[in-house]
């Protein structure tokens, strides 16, 4: 990779041509003292059970309230069971954490989409679904995949629990202005290549630290042609390249998707919002600190072989050898990864045994993802010995999928059709790999033990995951797709 690095533009005085990021940033700076980070206003704060308890405790200890409960929304997703809800929670500690979220939301007046709510689901799935996520907003959550919401032209990023407390108390955060990275992707996606493959290819190109300190703006004809759910998949994984956030300029695709959603503006307010949102694009002549380009027409379905999301290769490729790495450090990382994964360098990744297939997570659990998985599984069977889980991102996604009969396709194929939640992506709820098992997962992280202690994760698109479930091994999904060219 050779990112071009133009000279940094002047930052003072009247704003010249601006990037999308700069416009949203500027609109939200409350104040900035010399030598201090900006006080950045937060439009929407999403909360879940795992990263919030200590923040609410901090408020209580200081005698503070939630300053803008009307901008704060909570759900339960990380440690929730995906088997029918009447079954017991995974353990008493998870139970206590959920109970605490209920108590905190009641005490501080925060709206909670709890397990029995019809809107419950993964925080990054329900925000957009409810129309809470909107172009031009600043959105934070104690969760690194908050970058998902950038698909709508919002500046959305993950924060730690101390910052959750700051936002609860003041609706603001102290933030140093990040650098900007343009990721320009052009060309029509070849058959069988999806947003997940695009973003895995991007991360493989720049590495897991390649976008550290930057906010990415994805642009180009490939991005413009993506539906909003696919754009969410791309922005979701920005953090896996180390970026603070990923953004895509809102357009008619965005507006069509948002219109009529429960919290979306209505009537005159909608028209006023549209007029404003149409200005949320990078001006001609605006510059980025770094630019990376990708030719979409050359992409093939991707899969990871190693223990970070940057270790992705075409599903048709061989597992790389440590000696092939450009630096000694990268070689050492490959050696360590292959040792953990028990994969042989130089051998095709296709054909690798698969024990578990997980289709779900904030990366790939929306309706389009489930349709892709069903496209492969329809009329086929999950291979003997393979455990396949399909976990919708929200109850709304589950209802829509069932209305289309996708649940029947999954069940008839021999896959488990579960309740909404993060499930095996983070493996806090009892859904997990056993030591030594190989999984093809549509989630976002293949770190050691991420999906269960000793488990080995290969990240891929829903098409590739579903194909692996049928074959019982890693396989090129294009061999199982219909002739419609999709």
């Amino acid at each position, binding site marked *: 990779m050779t990112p071009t690095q133009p000279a940094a533009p002047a930052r003072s005085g009247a704003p010249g041509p601006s990037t999308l990021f700069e416009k949203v940033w500027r*609109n939200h700076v*409350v*104040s900035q003292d010399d*030598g*201090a*980070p900006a*006080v950045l*206003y937060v439009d929407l704060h999403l909360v879940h059970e*795992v*990263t919030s*308890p*200590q923040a609410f*405790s*901090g408020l209580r*200890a200081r005698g*503070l309230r939630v300053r803008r409960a009307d901008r704060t929304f909570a759900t339960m997703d990380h*440690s929730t069971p995906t088997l029918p809800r009447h079954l017991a929670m995974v*353990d008493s*500690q998870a139970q*206590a*954490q959920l109970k*605490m979220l209920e108590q905190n939301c009641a005490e501080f007046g925060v709206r909670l989409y709890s397990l029995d709510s019809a809107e419950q689901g993964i925080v990054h799935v329900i925000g957009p679904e409810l129309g809470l996520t909107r172009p031009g907003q600043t959105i934070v959550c*104690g969760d*690194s995949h908050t970058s998902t919401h950038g698909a709508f032209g919002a500046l959305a990023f*993950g*924060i*730690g*629990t*101390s*910052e959750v*407390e*700051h936002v609860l*108390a*003041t*609706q*603001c*955060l*102290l933030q*140093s202005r*990040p650098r900007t990275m343009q990721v320009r992707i052009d060309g029509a996606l070849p058959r069988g290549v999806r947003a997940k493959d695009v973003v895995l290819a991007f991360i493989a190109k720049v590495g*897991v*630290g390649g976008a*550290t*300190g930057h906010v990415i703006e994805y642009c180009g004809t490939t991005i413009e042609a993506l539906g909003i759910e696919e754009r969410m998949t791309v922005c979701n994984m920005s*953090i896996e390249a*180390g970026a*603070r956030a990923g953004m895509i300029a809102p357009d008619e695709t965005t507006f069509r998707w948002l219109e009529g959603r429960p919290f979306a503006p209505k009537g005159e307010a909608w028209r006023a919002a549209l007029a404003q949102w149409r200005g949320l694009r990078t001006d001609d002549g605006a510059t980025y600190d770094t630019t990376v380009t990708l030719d979409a027409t050359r992409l093939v379905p991707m899969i990871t072989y190693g223990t*970070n999301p940057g270790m992705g290769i075409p599903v048709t490729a061989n597992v790389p050898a440590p000696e092939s790495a450009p630096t000694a*450090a990268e070689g*050492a*990382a490959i050696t*360590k990864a292959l040792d953990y994964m028990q994969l042989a360098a130089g051998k095709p990744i296709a054909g690798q045994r698969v024990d578990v297939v997980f289709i779900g997570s904030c990366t790939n659990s929306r309706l389009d993802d489930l349709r892709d998985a069903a496209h492969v599984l329809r009329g086929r069977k999950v291979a003997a010995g393979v455990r396949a889980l399909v976990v919708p991102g929200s109850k709304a996604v589950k209802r829509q999928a069932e209305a289309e009969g996708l649940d029947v396709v999954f069940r008839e194929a021999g896959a488990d059709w579960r309740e909404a939640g993060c499930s095996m992506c983070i*493996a*806090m709820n009892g859904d997990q790999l056993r030591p030594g098992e190989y999984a093809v997962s549509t989630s976002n*992280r293949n*770190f*050691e*033990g*991420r999906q269960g*202690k000793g488990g080995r994760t290969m990240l891929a698109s829903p098409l590739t995951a579903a194909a692996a479930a049928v074959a019982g091994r890693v396989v090129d999904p294009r061999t199982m797709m219909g002739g419609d060219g999709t």
Partner: protein
Amino acid sequence: MKPGEREPFTTLTATYVVLLVDDVDTDQIIPARFLKTTDKRGLGTSLFADWRERPDFPLDRPDAAGAQILVAGANFGCGSSREHAPWALVGWGLRAIVALSFADIFRQNALKNGLLPIAVDAALHRRLLEARAADPKARITVDVAGQTVGLVGGPAARFDIDPFAKECLVHGIDELGYLLARLPEIERHEKAHA
């Protein structure tokens, strides 16, 4: 101490442990199964829980006792935003992490917990590794206000730290107090953008 106050962090001189791995993610620092706690305390025993099962893990060697600094590779703390990662590192007894680079969210989370992330260049990094290999009692010394780091008895190198974060560390201030003092400006912003 009252909420919002912390011990000022001005200097640190301590022995160190080396974990020479790049891209250490927060799932390794503290696996997700330990995130069901509702407390910040008590996570030190679970630090690097899965790696510590391996024989001869650096943090479990006898010569790691009393170390307050961890020297790691590049991109330390990537992945999840879980603040449980710095809580676990601090809980184990660490006060600074020296690495070639850090992931953004981890760096912010660490600073808010009095855990100092120090990015050093490859030359100093190599000297620290060599000194530790030669003598497990080798010590690193850090001056936060002066922004210097080095081996005790060796040359000091300058490190970068956000000036505001430095002020907070040196004076034991937390950021929430600063934000609360800006509520009038925040209210004005809300009125202007309503």
